[in-house]
């Protein structure tokens, strides 16, 4: 009776009332997983996710084969920003149905948000599975590959996603942006154009397209800019981009007018503030220019050039000491950029040497790269890998330690340090590193297995079992994890 009323309320979208009815139904039938689930679902739908957790968890315990409580719990926990717990629910759902789109969509999104890109790849790019990815999964997988700097893979996945869902603007936008990052503007433009053919009024995509055209110095940019300006005469970004184009062509009066309007509409954009300051300086309006350039910096403009422009304005105003300060800052930032570029060049050579199997040469080149860019943790990690190949354990350890000093969230470095510690018989330190690795990358199967092995070696069977179970949750087919689980089961005295 109460359940029927609950259903009626739910269908009428009166979820609060539905929740009350299902609560009563549950009280009368405390072992009914369904009533508990509908109670939790109603609470969640009523915008009361925190209250929904208990009935949903009970529902799940009452019927472990039902995927629905896990899915609703996952959503509720995500809504409460309890992402770690949500992830467990998504994984539990996937243990019931490995192809659940809802679980895969949400879990991959959570992992992308945590920058755990490898886990996303592991989750979604499984060659043994031929199922079609949802739009969200394609997007998340593309973003994960981009985050791993595997841009070709990102493009492949996003193109597949776009073929499946040609109307998806997010995929089109991200695909186009990654193509631009690959300096493939000529391939990016048709992606924008196809997307806009389906969504001609979408301002975000039109603005992205205009940005891309402007960046690529395309002849098409002025026309699109004018069209957008006619349609959106009071949209700050449209005004800004038009101002930028006018400035590029030396039409500074026009640029000034457009940029002033843009800044009036949105005073918080550092780039339009900079352009306005820069343009004002051309008209000798140095005091105003100074204000806008300073505002741009205060708003977080990190471009070195803004300091150069400010220095020139300050010099024009006769403020030579502050001008010198700005010029020094410009040079400092430029030098830092230059050092990074030099380091990247050396690192590329080192990668090449690594691929060619010349580890000694790679070590030298990574060290050169680090001389230019001594605070790049990934370079230390790569150096460590090269040192490992020439059996320089002390050097490898030192490089790994430096890597994690700079970025404790570098899971591979933590894992490798754990491995080295374990090899030295230092289980406590090993455990610490493996835990840091799985904390940084919760789906890092190898680190979970290593952690389990370390714990098992210390006869901490329950913890070891938990760890290996976690590895198998992520990768149920993992042979090493299965073997380890068997070993633990055999060795554990309780069993």
């Amino acid at each position, binding site marked *: 009776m109460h359940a029927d009323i609950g259903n009626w309320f739910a269908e009428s979208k009166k979820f609060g009332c539905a929740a009350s009815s299902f609560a009563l139904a549950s009280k009368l039938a405390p072992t009914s997983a369904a009533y508990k689930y509908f109670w939790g679902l109603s609470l969640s739908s009523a915008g009361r996710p925190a209250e929904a957790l208990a009935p949903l968890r009970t529902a799940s315990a009452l019927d472990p084969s039902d995927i629905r409580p896990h899915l609703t719990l996952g959503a509720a926990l995500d809504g409460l920003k309890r992402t770690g717990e949500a992830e467990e629910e998504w994984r539990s759902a996937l243990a019931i149905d490995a192809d659940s789109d809802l679980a895969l*969509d949400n879990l991959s*999104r959570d992992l*992308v*948000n945590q*920058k755990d890109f490898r886990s996303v790849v592991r989750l979604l790019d499984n060659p043994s599975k031929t199922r079609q990815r949802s739009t*969200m999964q394609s997007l*998340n997988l593309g*973003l994960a590959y*981009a*985050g791993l700097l595997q841009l*070709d893979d990102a493009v492949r996945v996003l193109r597949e996603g776009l073929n499946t869902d040609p109307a998806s*603007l*997010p995929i089109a*936008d991200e695909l186009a*942006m*990654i193509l*631009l*990052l*690959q*300096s*493939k503007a*000529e*391939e990016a433009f048709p992606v924008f154009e196809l997307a806009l053919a389906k969504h001609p009024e979408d301002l*975000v995509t039109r603005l*992205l397209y205009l*940005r*891309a055209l*402007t*960046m690529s*110095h395309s002849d098409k940019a002025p026309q699109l800019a004018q069209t957008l300006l006619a349609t959106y005469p009071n949209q700050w970004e449209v005004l800004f981009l038009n101002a*930028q184009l006018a*400035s*590029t062509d*030396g039409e*500074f*009066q026009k*640029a000034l007018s457009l940029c002033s309007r843009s800044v009036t509409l949105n005073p918080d954009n550092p*780039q339009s503030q*900079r*352009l306005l300051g*820069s343009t004002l300086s*051309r008209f000798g309006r140095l005091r105003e220019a100074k204000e806008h350039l300073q505002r741009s910096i205060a708003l977080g403009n990190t*471009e070195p*050039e*803004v300091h*150069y*422009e400010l220095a*020139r304005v300050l010099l024009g105003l006769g403020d030579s000491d502050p001008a010198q300060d700005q*010029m020094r800052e*410009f040079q400092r930032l*430029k*030098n830092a950029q*230059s050092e990074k*570029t*030099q380091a*990247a*060049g*050396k690192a*590329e*050579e080192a990668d090449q040497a690594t691929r060619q199997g010349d580890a000694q040469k790679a070590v030298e080149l990574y060290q050169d790269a680090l001389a230019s860019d001594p605070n790049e943790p990934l370079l230390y990690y790569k150096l460590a890998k090269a040192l490992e190949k020439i059996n320089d354990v002390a050097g490898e350890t030192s490089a790994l330690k430096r890597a994690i000093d700079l970025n404790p969230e570098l899971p591979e470095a933590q894992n490798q340090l754990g491995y080295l510690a374990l090899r030295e018989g230092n289980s406590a330190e090993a455990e610490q590193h493996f835990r840091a690795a799985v904390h940084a990358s919760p789906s890092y199967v190898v680190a979970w297995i290593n952690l389990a092995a370390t714990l098992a070696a210390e006869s901490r069977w329950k913890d070891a079992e938990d760890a290996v179970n976690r590895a198998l949750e992520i990768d149920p087919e993992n042979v090493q994890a299965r073997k380890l689980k068997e070993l633990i089961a055999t060795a554990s005295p309780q069993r």
Partner: protein
Amino acid sequence: MAFRFTPFEPWSRRRMLQSLSGVAASFALSSPDLAAQSSTKEAAPFSRFVEVAQSSCLTKVMFYGEGSTATYLTEIMGGGCAFLDYDNDGWMDIFIVGGRRLESIPLGASNRLYRNNRDGTFTDVTKEAGLLDAGWGVGVCVGDYNNDGFEDLFVTYFGQNKLYRNNGNGTFTEVTREAGLLSPKTRFGSGCTFVDFNRDGLLDLFVANYADVDIATLPKPSLDRPNCNFEGVPVNCGPSGLPLPTHALYRNNGNGTFTDVSKESGVAAMRGSYGLTACAFDADDDGWPDIFVACDSTPSLLLMNNHDGTFREEALLRGVAVSDNGREMAGMGVGIGDYDCDGRLDIVRTHYMNQATGLYHNIGKGEFEDVTAQAGLIRERRFVSWGTCLLDLDNDGFPDIFVVTGQVYPELEAVLPKYPRRGPRLLFRNLGNGSFSQVDDASQPALSERHVSRGCAFGDFDNDGDLDIVIMNQNEPPSLLRNDAPQQNHWIKIRLYGVKSNRSALGSRVTVRCGSKVQVQELMSQSSYVSSNDPRLHFGLGSAANVDIEVRWPLGLVENYKNVAVNQLVSLREGTGQLKEESLTGIRSVRQPPATP
């Protein structure tokens, strides 16, 4: 579920978009009266250029890389060229720097010396002169380093730079080793300039280097490396990310040898730039030569002379290191001249495509302002630009800008036709009001013809009173553009002979006045793109009938010559106060009427 989220910072749309903005260059508005003056100028006849390389027998192909592909950037950077009078006969000869193929040296590959036959033709005398050499030649600078009265050559290479001493008998001897200029390791020499930096009367030598690379370790075109592809097409890598070089300064010991003083002069410490064309001139009017180096993708350098054998680098402070909005430019070629006739030397610098050729106005004491937009140069950004000048081509009294172009990524054209391998010649006519108008090349095939050009040099090969142009084209014979300047415009050429100063008189500053108008030039060993111009300073004078000339010699002596007649060559010898006048008859050639706009 929100699809359009910004998933993570490094790839977030907003963050990326922040990096996309490109703000343009400088500004100014022309006042109505100046605009009127410009329209008058545009209506006046202008020079007509005629390609005469073939009829002049400049026919040898200048091999440089493969042409249709380039694996390494060493295959794309050369070469320069020079007008010089190596045999002192009063007629400009031509030297062209060439290269080779990556895997082989084709038959006929060499630098080339062409002797002027004084009849509009040239003879290839490379072999007789002892200048046959095929390597990765890049640039050339000219100067009489041993003060024997004959111009010597210094040629930069990816490899070992070479000094060729002019023996005075039509031949040269390579004296790199004897002169102490051998480098212990492979260097990528690019710009060079003879310059008497310590004012001891001997020409010293500054050499810019492009990058510290070795073909053995240079990466190849690749889609996996950001600096090895362009818009999805694998291309030769760099320069970004390649090791930055140091530049070199060699002091002339006065006995035919040089001493490397890069460290003690401070030059070796000026790292951080991929150096190309080097121009020595007195930027701050203090009487001592400074050195400007156009640098690719990095801040250009302005080495200010401290008068004590050392230099300080001040390009950034003085406004010529980067664009006016702080962006690093791909500086290739340099022209030095006084475009607005204010008596101060300005700088024009050519750049990569999508970057307008930059004009830097000297506002006094060696301070410069970027006036690219004000001058009307900002809209032409289509081509990779190389050799250039700030010289008066139509003799109207206002220096013009000429630019040669050519792609650095030969593979692009097949995939992306909007990036053609060959480019045209660009000509910007000085309107006399601080701005320039681009000359329509439609009626001038010599300008619209497309080539993969690099260096060009300006000189009067036919001695007819205007500046002709020789152009190094990769994998083709050079171009020789005969200038048929409007006959009604007057001119004067000034040849300087140093006595106490270096014999070439490099570093001399000549000021020409007629009425209230003033023009200034300085004699340089290198400009354009790693090239060297006719050492006779050429001034267009419009309708002026006579001029006053002031010469400030390299060692500081100032001499004045009043009421000098126009349309002639005058030769001045330092310290004599005497002037030798010589009318140039030119050669008989069929001349076209001047082009009308």
